[in-house]
Every structure is written in structure tokens, then in C-alpha cells.
């Protein structure tokens, strides 16, 4: 019998190991899996490489993971936002490395990692500092650079609903990086506001088919990161 439910965020991230690469969904607070990240802070794994579009805000969620010193490298398109001070300090202090990737290249590298594409060519970043050291090649008279697929050991993804097979649907612009990250990770972990039985989600509207999802955990009322930040909350 297939039942991908786990009982709690802590159980869901229990086997994350030191040195793991972790994809973390979300664009700003939309889709940020705060409960899973907090469970990961409690769990203690360190020397992590985090692949995520941003670096969190305030001192909760992803920013709290960084603040706790668990992240040695981030792969990211936009590591500074409003209320984002943790990463800039770590970066300036040389404590966390940064691989800066254009947002669309990041999304496509993740999708490629999930789709068995080791590398592809893109015109994005040609002629810029982010193309330095990359192979450049001409197709039909236009210049492109070679970019490589990106994979991770774990993905932490926030969703609206999932079924016990892992079929997942999202909420509005919180969908963002969730589906490609789930594809590109060895263990994709989804926190969903509700978990239903198979058949509870119309097969026509599934966004992440269960084959991409390894664990689902119900977080019925996820916190709003922006509210925590506004309240000056910290974690733990």
C-alpha cells in the first residue's frame, strides 16, 4: 500500500544529513515551507547547501536556518530582500558562500535536473559576469552559454493539498519553485494544509504527480512568515 504520510515535520526531515543539498521552495514568503525549515533547524543537520530563490527575511524560516549557522552555501537568484539581513551578514563575513544564478536559469537548471537533462544552452547571461567560465556556443547566429542540471538530496515544498500518493496542488503564486524542485530531489517533502485520500484530487488538476513526491505531512494552519517578521519573532 502506498501511503506517503508522515506524522510531523520533524519526522519528515529526520534523515537529512550533514552536507546535504536541499532545495527550498518559495518566492519571498509565498510557498516558503516555514514549518519544515523550523523542523530542520531542530533536527540539527549542518554544512547544508541550500538552493532557493531568496534567503529569507527576518529571523524565522530560511533566514533562521542561515542564522543558526547550518548553511555553508546558497544557490540563489536574489539573496537580498526587504527585511533580509541574516544572509548579507554571513556573506560579508565569509561564512556562507553564494552561487548567484539568474532566476530563469535557476528554474530551468532545476527542471533539467528533474528531467534527466544534464545540460542545456541558454541566452540568459551571455556577455555578463554570470557567464564567466561558462562554455559559449553559437546556434543560428546567436550566442548561448551552457548551463548544467541541478539536483538535490531533499526538497522542502509548501502546498495547498496532497493525497496519500503524493499528488499535490498549490495555492496561487505559492506554486513557484515547488513543482520543479520536487522533480529534482531524491527525497521531496511536501507540507500541505490538508492530506486527502487517493481520488480526493481530480486527476486533471494535479500539478505535481505523486511520482515526484516522497513524503507528505499535514500542516493545517501554516504560519505567515511576514507576520512573524513583523512581530520580530525569531526561531528557535
Amino acid at each position, binding site marked *: *500500500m*502506498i501511503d506517503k504520510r508522515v506524522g510531523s515535520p520533524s519526522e519528515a526531515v529526520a534523515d537529512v544529513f550533514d552536507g546535504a543539498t536541499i532545495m527550498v521552495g518559495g518566492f519571498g514568503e509565498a510557498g516558503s515551507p516555514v514549518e519544515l525549515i523550523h523542523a530542520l533547524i531542530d533536527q540539527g543537520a549542518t554544512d547544508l547547501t541550500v538552493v532557493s530563490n531568496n534567503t529569507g527575511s527576518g529571523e524565522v524560516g530560511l533566514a533562521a536556518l542561515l542564522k543558526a549557522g547550518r548553511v555553508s552555501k546558497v544557490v540563489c537568484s536574489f539573496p537580498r530582500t526587504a527585511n533580509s539581513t541574516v544572509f548579507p551578514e554571513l556573506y560579508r563575513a565569509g561564512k556562507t558562500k553564494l552561487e548567484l544564478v539568474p532566476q530563469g536559469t535557476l528554474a530551468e537548471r532545476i*527542471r533539467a*535536473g*528533474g*528531467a*534527466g*537533462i544534464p545540460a542545456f544552452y541558454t541566452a540568459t547571461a551571455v556577455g555578463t559576469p554570470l557567464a564567466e567560465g561558462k562554455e559559449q556556443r553559437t546556434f543560428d547566429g546567436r550566442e548561448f552559454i551552457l548551463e548544467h542540471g541541478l539536483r538535490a538530496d531533499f526538497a522542502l515544498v509548501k502546498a495547498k493539498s496532497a*493525497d*496519500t*500518493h503524493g*499528488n499535490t496542488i498549490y495555492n496561487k503564486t505559492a506554486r513557484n519553485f515547488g513543482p520543479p524542485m520536487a*522533480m529534482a530531489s531524491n527525497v521531496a517533502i511536501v507540507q500541505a494544509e490538508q492530506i486527502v*485520500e*487517493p*481520488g480526493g484530487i481530480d*486527476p*486533471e488538476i*494535479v500539478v505535481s*504527480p*505523486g*511520482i*515526484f513526491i516522497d513524503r507528505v505531512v499535514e500542516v493545517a494552519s501554516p504560519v505567515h512568515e511576514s507576520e512573524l517578521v513583523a512581530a520580530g519573532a525569531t526561531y528557535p
Partner: protein
Amino acid sequence: MTPATASERIGRTREQMAERLAQDIADGSYVNLGIGIPELVAKYVPVGREVVYHTENGLLGMGPSPAEGSEDPELINAGKRHVTVNPGGSFFHHADSFAMIRGGHIDLCVLGALQIAANGDLANWSTGAPDAIPAVGGAMDLVAGVKKVFAITQHTTKTGEPKLVPACTYPLTGLGVIDRVYTDLAVIDITPDGFRLVELSPGVEFGYVQERTGAPLLQP
């Protein structure tokens, strides 16, 4: 050695081959079954194991054939036969479907074979006949991408030639892609040392199988 006469039935039937293979499918697997004998496998998955079937034309959670009269021409499998959807199924487009295949998300695929080489090379899409219409479908994608690839096939051709060969002479589908072969006569693993017997079909002797295999068959 017990050479069989043409009329003598020895080894497994197609249904029995499918039944034998089905024993080796783990609970919770995502499985793609090719057209032909592979399709029979679904019937024999042991009770208590849940398997999710993928069909490359855009469906996970494929169920059995529909009742007569309730066929939907827009709900078919890769063999273009009418199917159903199990609870927990999902539809997706072709690029996503082959992302599942190429990206290593499918646990197992089961394919027919024209020839299988001792190094795991597979030929199953063309005999290279000059006037044949070449057609490959998803076979090359499946063998290149799926985690484990089982072949299910008669041990020899209709004219008695071995299908398990030292090297394929037909155009290849993939290099070193087969993990295990299920035939009417035996179950055989592809190993770094070549073909290695896993088990003989009931009533079949080792020498009988070796005689009909084009390359050395190692003892289990």
C-alpha cells in the same frame, strides 16, 4: 539435455512468464509496461502490493480496461488501447511524462525484445529490414531513463534462433540497459560477467537453456 520436439510444451507460457515477473515488482513501485507480453504483467501483481502504472502518453495511475461500452477514445494507453484511471491518478503532457522517464523517476519498465546481448544491450525496435517503416516510439527513452529495465521474451525466435546473444546484430535500442530477462525457459540476470541464471522454469534443465542461449550462461 532434453531436446524438445516441436509439439512438446516446455517452460512457461506467456501468461506464466508475466506471472513470474510480477513477483519481482516491489510494493509501491512506479512501473511502465510495454506493449505485448509486458501488458499481461499487471494482472499478476501479488495481492497486497500496490503498483502505480505509468503510460507515457500522459497518465499515472492507469487502471484496467474499461467495461465494454464505457470506453473513452481520449483515455488510452501507449498501445492505444482503452484504459481507466485509478484513484490517485494524474494526467500530464508529453514533456512532463518523459521527464518522469528520462529523469529516473520510474522504478521499473518491462519491455519486449528482439535481441539482448550479454552486456545488456537491447534491440527491440527494428530488424533493420530495408523496406520496414522505422518506428521507435518511447523505447529508447525508457531504457535510457528508467531505473530498472526488465525484458520479457521467448527465449528463441520462431525459427529457433537465440534471442540472448553475444552481441546484437539488429539496430540497438540502448547500450547496456537490461537488468534482467524473463523468458519461457528461465530468469537470467545481466551481470558484469554476462548472462547469469537466476532460476530455471519448472521442468527445464540448465543445458537445455544454455543450448538455446547465444552466449555463455553462468550458473546462479
